[in-house]
């Protein structure tokens, strides 16, 4: 090995080590605090107590809220992926006048909707449509906010997938819907999976919409809301419950990511590399 290559290797591994440290050090607290009897913000060797977990299991809303999060996240992700994929495919393959301008405009508008200023219109809209206190209402509203970015990203993938397969399928007489199902979806599956995880992660952390829209039943509230209730009357964080619930709250998204990335791949491009 030439000295230059050795230096290159050393440089490479140093960089990787720095990146690994940068991304893992902040996670340490989540690994230690839940197992510590009286956790503070200090990362210290835990005494491996399970008392915090027992306390969370006894918490009246903790586990139910994770289930609610699951409904909201999966429901939203399915709608986002399904509708965004169909729309992105159509927009990618057929030139509709003004389509790019439309996409940019929607993308920009979606930033208003995710802001706090939109809570009154959204709340009143939900009241008018009788969607208050339903998971469906929250799912539809969150889906509306995520769709433009999802279409935008998916259209990008679709633009890059080879069209020759579609053409040959068409030659063999397949209908457009069949082509989408059997040709396009398998090609962009990793992209769909990525969008699904992106949508899930977005919904998983969303506090304001579910909090406002579930107005009469805390049993419907997702974990993002329940984690904010683990404070005292004066606003102090109960770190025992918070760190432990934070861990439980994080595990499902991580599992979902692992599952999706193992099953479908997790990439921002089609399944076939050119």
């Amino acid at each position, binding site marked *: 090995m030439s000295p230059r290559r050795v230096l290159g290797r050393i440089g490479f591994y140093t960089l990787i080590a720095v990146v690994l440290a940068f991304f893992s050090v902040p996670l340490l607290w989540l690994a230690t605090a839940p197992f510590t009897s009286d956790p*503070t913000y200090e990362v210290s060797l835990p005494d491996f107590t399970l008392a915090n977990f027992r306390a969370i299991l*006894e*918490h*009246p*809303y*903790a586990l139910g809220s994770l289930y609610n999060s699951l*409904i*909201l996240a*999966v*429901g939203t992700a*399915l*709608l986002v*992926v*399904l509708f965004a994929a169909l729309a992105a495919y159509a927009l990618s393959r057929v030139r509709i006048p003004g389509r790019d301008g439309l996409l940019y405009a929607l993308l920009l508008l979606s930033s208003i909707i995710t802001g706090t200023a939109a*809570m*009154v219109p959204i*709340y*009143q809209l939900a*009241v008018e449509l009788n969607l*208050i*206190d*339903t*998971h*469906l209402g929250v*799912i539809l509203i969150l889906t509306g906010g995520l769709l433009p970015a999802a279409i935008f990203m998916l259209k990008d993938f679709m633009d890059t997938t080879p069209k020759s397969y579609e053409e040959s399928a068409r030659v063999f007489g397949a209908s457009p819907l069949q082509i*989408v*199902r059997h040709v396009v*979806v398998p090609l962009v599956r990793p992209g769909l999976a990525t969008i699904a995880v992106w949508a899930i992660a977005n919904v998983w952390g969303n506090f*304001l919409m579910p*909090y*406002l829209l*579930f*107005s*009469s*039943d*805390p049993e*419907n509230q997702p974990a993002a*809301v*329940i984690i*904010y*209730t*683990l*404070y*005292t*009357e*004066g*606003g*102090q*964080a*109960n770190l025992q*419950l918070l760190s432990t619930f934070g861990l439980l709250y994080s595990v499902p998204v991580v599992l979902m990511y692992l599952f999706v990335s193992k099953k479908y791949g997790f990439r921002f491009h089609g399944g076939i590399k050119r």
Partner: protein
Amino acid sequence: MRLRKISAVAVLALSAAACGQSSGGGGDTIELTITQNAIAGGKNAKGAEYIAKWVIPQFEAAQKAKGKDVKVKFIPSGVDDEQYKTKLSLDLKSGKGADVLDIDGIWMGEFAEAGYIKPLAEVAGPEAESWDGWSQIPEAVQGLATFSGKKYALPVGTDGRVLYFNKTLMTKAGLPADWQPKSWQEIIDAGTKLKAAGVPVPIQINAGTAMGEATSMQGVLPLLAGAGGEVQKDGKWTGAAQPLKDALGLYQKIYSQGLGDPKLQQEAKGRDKSFAQFAEGKIGILMEGDYFWRGVINPTDGVAKMADRDQTVGYAKIPAMEPGKGLRSQDFVSMSGGALRTLNPNSKHPKEAFELLAFTLSAEGLKEETKNGNVRITPRTDVNKEILAGDPLLAYISEEVLPLTAYRPPVALYPQVSTALQEATAAVVSGKTPDEAAAEYQKKLEGIAGGAGNIAS
């Protein structure tokens, strides 16, 4: 095939989701709901427990005895007060929301002006005015629930602010264990001695915007009262007048002479940290409300437990700048607030809702609520006499502090004015002079109050 599978799953998930919708009540059952910013297993858990485990079964049974079939449901919340307020506003605006609801006293003005709440007598009828509990509630506490001369709610309780100190540190610094300063200078002198004795943070008086309303209630407002000022007087806001400059002057003395930790005032979790530091014996003197005693350093279930609280922690009244210079020429001052419990004007069963409301604040109910170490100052004198005897600090506040306390103006603009006050303290802590900070405050105040005409200086 896959697409079909996916859509089938989607339909399933969505129909499962739609099932969350609640169904309306049937028959002649009266359904009532009650909400608080409290939740079992989280914020204000004991309050939530009281409603769910005692009020509801007892009230339902009492109504049954009268031949009424009443079902009560508790809607817990337990998030940040601002978010709870937002949700209440949205619910009430749309004609929804619980029949009985808790609000913070300072929201009353804006809620009333928005039409979100109405005078009790208008919603529930004359019974609300003639409720027998009123005779047990002191005039000042009734004032908490009164807006433009009408009672909009029942007060849930009140509180008071004092100076807490660590007796061990005081003794170390050569100060008496029963310290009671009579002027601001004595606070500064004590701080200087504590500093000389090596106490890391001699004095903690909340400042800055990070602590929010805690800066106003446990900081600038008691000091303002101590200098003889009020944030609003006779309908006019107080601008850059001398009392405000004096109050900001004390901040300057504390934070420019190293008697306080300016960084603690800026941190997002600075108040939590001040609690932890006091519990660890790093803070000499701390201005806080009775919540600090009950909920923070409480040796059994506080967030910053002090096992030796009763021996180590002393408390003193907050002195005026100089004897006789305080609000209403007092020697000592304090500030109080408190939650209110009121009715939803859209309630379908306002009479029963009021009965429920009154039931939660009956003498029997309050005694039940404050059992088992959950003591607080209730609105009722009859109950306080009984329950506060066992807690020296709460008895002290109830007897010594409440007679000289002051309240915030329950008007819609107060929250914005309070923020401007907090910004003024932040400016002083980070080096501006009290005069500069007061002038900036005056300017902001003119913007908030709609012109200089609404400001007295």
